């Protein structure tokens, strides 16, 4: 009770100061609650809307054709209510006139009469049942000025010129309407092109549903109410047999929304960064506050208070501050989480937007609070050890003794925070790396700043007086200073690293616009008989160079003598990637020698001697994912024919070179008689000529898919811009929170600063000298931490670019320098502002008050 009264009295007398500290802390927590609230809501949205996103309860997938009997195979599925057969494939769509041609890659969905099985798809005008005709994405319709043709109209050049029809495959199809909402399509912002939906009969008439097309077959199934999904999925797997994939709606929707999920993970990672920041901020502020109470604790002891009274009283105050600011942060952050979807624009399907107030992430909050409690325990318990005699012995700042459990408490807190990071990661390995990354970052900033603060005394006599005084202030509380530098450093690091990585990702893509070394126009599924005609077309359009690779589609049946299905069963816990890589349709190619963008990392690539060899070369990452090693024999099914090859080399491929590269290369002698298509890559600098080539190819070779990389770059760039925008907003919040932490720490520890300033004034220091000492102090604090963090962010981006993106990334240091300067100036401004009152106080008033 006494402790409560004491805490209440202090709170009442210093309410404005406490309010400010709580506000500073709340901003940090707000950033955390905002990111987590948003990400959690999107996750819940994906699960909740998974049926709508998928358009069914479960889906049976098959790459390519050859699964036409799927409906028959699944006909006996228990609890089956309805089913719909759907084919999805990218194809070229063109329109307009020959003078003003419009061409682009679209993602087509050819559907049978039962489609759609569930509500969610909005067409305008509403399609009849069964769905007939061609419906185009609203964005494409707007961009190309497409309008629905009159009902019953036949496809013709007139309709095409009037923008009421599109050329698809081998014919012209009138536009029946516009897709207003397609939940499944909007869940994937990285789609190759806009969606078009057409009925299956029309698609077949246009020659779109053929074995050559890059096509996937899906059988969508809805279940009768009350049918358990899991057992239905299990039975569907049994009925469907090998070579197909069966997924329930939650799993399928999660895959469908993978880019969104990845974006979410990224935001969650930033959220964790903000939580770490908030925790460190809370630690810094409350440590400064508690350390400033040592004198009061000693006085209370002088007055006869038991040792635990100051501990309990100030523990109550610190705990109250923490909980209050967390609550305030939750309110602020949740409001921001509600506004975040607006920032993301159409990246987020309307159906996934967070609805209502996001629930607080209880586990994360509790763990963070526990970690903070552990961190605050040492300075709190130190209050109980305040020795009254110290007051007489050393004046206003009694000696701070170390505590035996200080390091274990810090270690415990670090482990708790690491647990949060690992829990959030997609797998343990990434989680460990991320946690170690955070720990490394903090250790370097904290360690280096401690080192500087320990070492500066040696340099003291050689430094200007103002700088010495500034460093002295920083060195007076080396732990707190290092902590503040870590908080500032963390904010700078997250801001810069995000920007650097974004630049790493976008820069090589942007360079595709023809810098003389890389291709930017790709032609897929080129039949062998069309090659020469295409080459003539290229020459006629002024294009004299291109590269070419043959392509054969196949399926992996066994690796090192073990069937793929057995491997899948043996490794139930492995990453999705491995299973997916083994079971997908494989693109095989061959070439006599390696391309510029690849190098051998293990084994030997076959010699170009014309001799037949049963050898295969795998991309190293792919080999690791499917579990293949050097010397393993791969068995493949090529159009029903078995083919065997031994892995004799592993390659590292620089994918961002945009050259024609493959996971599996086979010796040319193995694929001589296999059904082959060709892949062509052209480098066309002039966008107009590129568009002309694409239009001509689409018009004369409707089965050839043309991919303009510039278009993809624009889409990826748009997504990355949005990601960067979100990251910048969050980084801004982090920066603000770090600066507020600084301000609050200065306020919390103002007493010592005021005393030193008063003393220096009493011994004759001028205003100018005192101001300069403060300028140096805050410049070193802000600039030093920003410099350390910027250097680390630069290094991290370089390593990430080199080892993860396989780029010789050299992030532009200008941004780092700018942010460093800005952080130094902001810290300086805020520091001077927070010290203004200390500077103004009369020296005698300060000195005599102690």
């Amino acid at each position: 009770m006494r402790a409560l009264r004491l805490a209440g009295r202090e709170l009442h007398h210093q309410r404005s100061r406490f309010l400010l500290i709580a506000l500073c802390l709340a901003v940090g927590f707000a950033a955390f609650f905002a990111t987590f609230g948003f990400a959690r809501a999107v996750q819940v949205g994906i699960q909740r809307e998974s049926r709508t996103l998928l358009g069914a309860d479960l889906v049976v997938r098959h790459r390519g054709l050859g699964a036409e009997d799927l409906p028959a195979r699944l006909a006996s599925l228990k609890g089956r209510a309805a089913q719909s057969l759907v084919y999805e494939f990218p194809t070229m769509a063109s329109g307009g006139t020959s003078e003003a041609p419009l061409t682009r890659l679209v993602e087509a969905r050819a559907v049978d009469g039962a489609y759609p099985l569930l509500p969610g798809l909005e067409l305008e005008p509403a399609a009849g049942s069964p769905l007939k005709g061609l419906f185009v994405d609203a964005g494409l319709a707007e961009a190309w000025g497409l309008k629905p043709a009159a009902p019953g109209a036949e496809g013709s050049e007139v309709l095409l010129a009037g923008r009421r029809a599109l050329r698809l495959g081998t014919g012209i199809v009138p536009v029946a309407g516009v897709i207003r909402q397609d939940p499944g399509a909007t869940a994937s912002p990285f789609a190759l092109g806009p969606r078009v939906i057409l009925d299956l009969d029309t698609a077949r008439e246009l020659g779109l549903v053929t074995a050559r097309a890059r096509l996937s077959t899906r059988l969508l199934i809805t279940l009768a109410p009350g049918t358990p999904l899991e057992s239905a999925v299990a039975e569907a797997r049994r009925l469907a047999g090998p070579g197909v994939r069966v997924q329930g709606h939650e799993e399928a929707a999660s895959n469908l929304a993978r880019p969104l999920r990845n974006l979410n993970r990224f935001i969650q990672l930033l959220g964790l960064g903000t939580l770490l920041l908030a925790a460190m901020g809370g630690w810094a502020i409350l440590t400064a506050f508690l350390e400033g109470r040592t004198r009061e604790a000693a006085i209370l002891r002088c007055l006869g208070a038991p040792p635990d009274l100051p501990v309990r009283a100030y523990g109550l105050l610190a705990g109250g501050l923490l909980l209050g600011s967390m609550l305030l942060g939750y309110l602020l952050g949740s409001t921001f989480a509600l506004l975040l979807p607006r920032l993301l624009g159409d990246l987020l399907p309307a159906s996934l937007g967070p609805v209502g107030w996001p629930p607080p992430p209880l586990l994360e909050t509790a763990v963070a609070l526990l970690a903070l409690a552990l961190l605050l325990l040492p300075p709190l318990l130190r209050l109980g050890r305040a020795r009254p005699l110290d007051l007489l012995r050393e004046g206003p700042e009694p000696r701070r003794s170390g505590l035996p459990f200080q390091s274990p408490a810090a270690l415990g807190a670090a482990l708790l925070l690491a647990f949060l990071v690992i829990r959030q990661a997609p797998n343990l390995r990434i989680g460990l790396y991320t946690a170690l990354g955070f720990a490394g970052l903090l250790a370097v900033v904290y360690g280096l700043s401690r080192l500087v603060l320990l070492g500066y005394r040696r340099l003291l006599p050689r430094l200007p007086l103002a700088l010495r005084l500034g460093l002295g202030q920083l060195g007076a509380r080396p732990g707190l200073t290092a902590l503040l530098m870590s908080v500032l450093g963390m904010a700078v690091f997250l801001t810069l690293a995000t920007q650097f990585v974004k630049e790493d990702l976008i820069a090589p893509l942007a360079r595709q616009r023809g810098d003389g070394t890389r291709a930017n126009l790709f032609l897929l599924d080129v039949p062998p008989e069309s090659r020469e005609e295409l080459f003539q077309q290229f020459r006629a359009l002024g294009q004299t160079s291109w590269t070419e690779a043959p392509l054969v589609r196949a399926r992996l049946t066994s690796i090192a003598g073990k069937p793929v299905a057995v491997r899948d069963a043996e490794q139930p816990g492995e990453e999705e990637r491995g299973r997916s890589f083994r079971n997908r349709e494989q693109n095989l190619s061959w070439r006599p020698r390696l391309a510029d963008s690849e190098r051998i990392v293990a084994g030997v690539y076959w010699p170009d001697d014309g001799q037949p060899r049963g050898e295969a070369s795998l991309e190293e990452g792919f080999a690791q994912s499917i579990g293949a090693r050097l010397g393993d024999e791969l068995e493949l099914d090529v159009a029903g024919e078995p083919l065997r090859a031994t892995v004799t080399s592993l390659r590292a491929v620089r994918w961002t070179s945009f050259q024609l590269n493959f996971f599996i290369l086979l010796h040319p002698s193995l694929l001589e008689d296999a059904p082959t298509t060709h892949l062509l890559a052209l480098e066309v600098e002039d966008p107009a000529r590129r568009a002309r080539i694409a239009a001509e190819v689409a018009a004369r070779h409707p089965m050839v898919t043309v991919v303009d990389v510039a278009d993809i770059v624009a889409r990826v760039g748009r997504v990355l811009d949005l990601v960067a925008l979100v990251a910048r907003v969050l980084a801004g919040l982090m920066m603000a929170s770090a600066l507020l932490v600084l301000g609050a720490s200065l306020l919390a520890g103002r007493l010592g600063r005021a005393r030193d300033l008063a003393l220096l004034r009493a011994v004759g220091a001028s205003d100018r000298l005192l101001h300069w000492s403060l300028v140096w102090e805050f410049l070193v604090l802000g600039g030093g931490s920003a410099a350390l963090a910027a250097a680390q962010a630069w290094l991290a981006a370089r390593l990430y670019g080199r080892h993860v993106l396989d780029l010789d990334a050299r992030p532009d240091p200008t941004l780092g320098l700018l942010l460093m300067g800005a952080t130094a100036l902001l810290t300086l401004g805020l520091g001077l502002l927070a010290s203004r009152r200390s500077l103004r106080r009369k020296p005698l008033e300060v000195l005599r008050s102690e």
Partner: protein
Amino acid sequence: MIRLANLTKDFPSPDGHPLRVLEGIDLLLPASASLAIEGPSGSGKSTLLGILAGLERPTEGRVEVAGVDLGTLTERQLAAFRARTLGFVFQAFHLLQHFSALQNVVIAAEIAGLPDPLPRSREALARVGLEDRLDHLPGQLSGGECQRVAIARAIVARPPVLLCDEPTGSLDPANAGKVFELILDLHRDLGTSLVLVTHDPALASRMEHRLRLERGRMVAA
């Protein structure tokens, strides 16, 4: 020499009426002389010392220290005046906790603009008997040693005036005696004027002049 003429100091009080803490103080202290300022708590002793140090400005009256009329100086000039003309010793030592004993003195020497601050600081510390404690932080020194550092800091620039605000108030009797003797020795050796605020009549009696304050008024000199 210190000359005070009709010195008055008011402070604003919570009720809006000015609170008079010093009234009509007149004093003339010759150069190199010593003065004890005595009086009960709240009598204005420390305020008077602050005015002598140029840390407070009087409401009325004139203050002349070492031939300088403090009323004519700007804040910047006052700071320079303090650095070169005054040495200040506080009851609570007021050392910069994060600087060593030597650095505490060096900083004062540099603020005073001494050409060779380091040897002068070593010399000042040697004079107070701390030549073997140069690199110790205040937290590593005893109370008496801390006050000696504070005295070394006050005399490093050889100021003509030394102001001491109850310099032995925080020390045990043995240390208090030693510190007081040290101050007197320095006053004599360096020829500084010494102004000492004290409650202790025994110490006051060792000064050449005594000034007693009660409720802001001079009751004896």
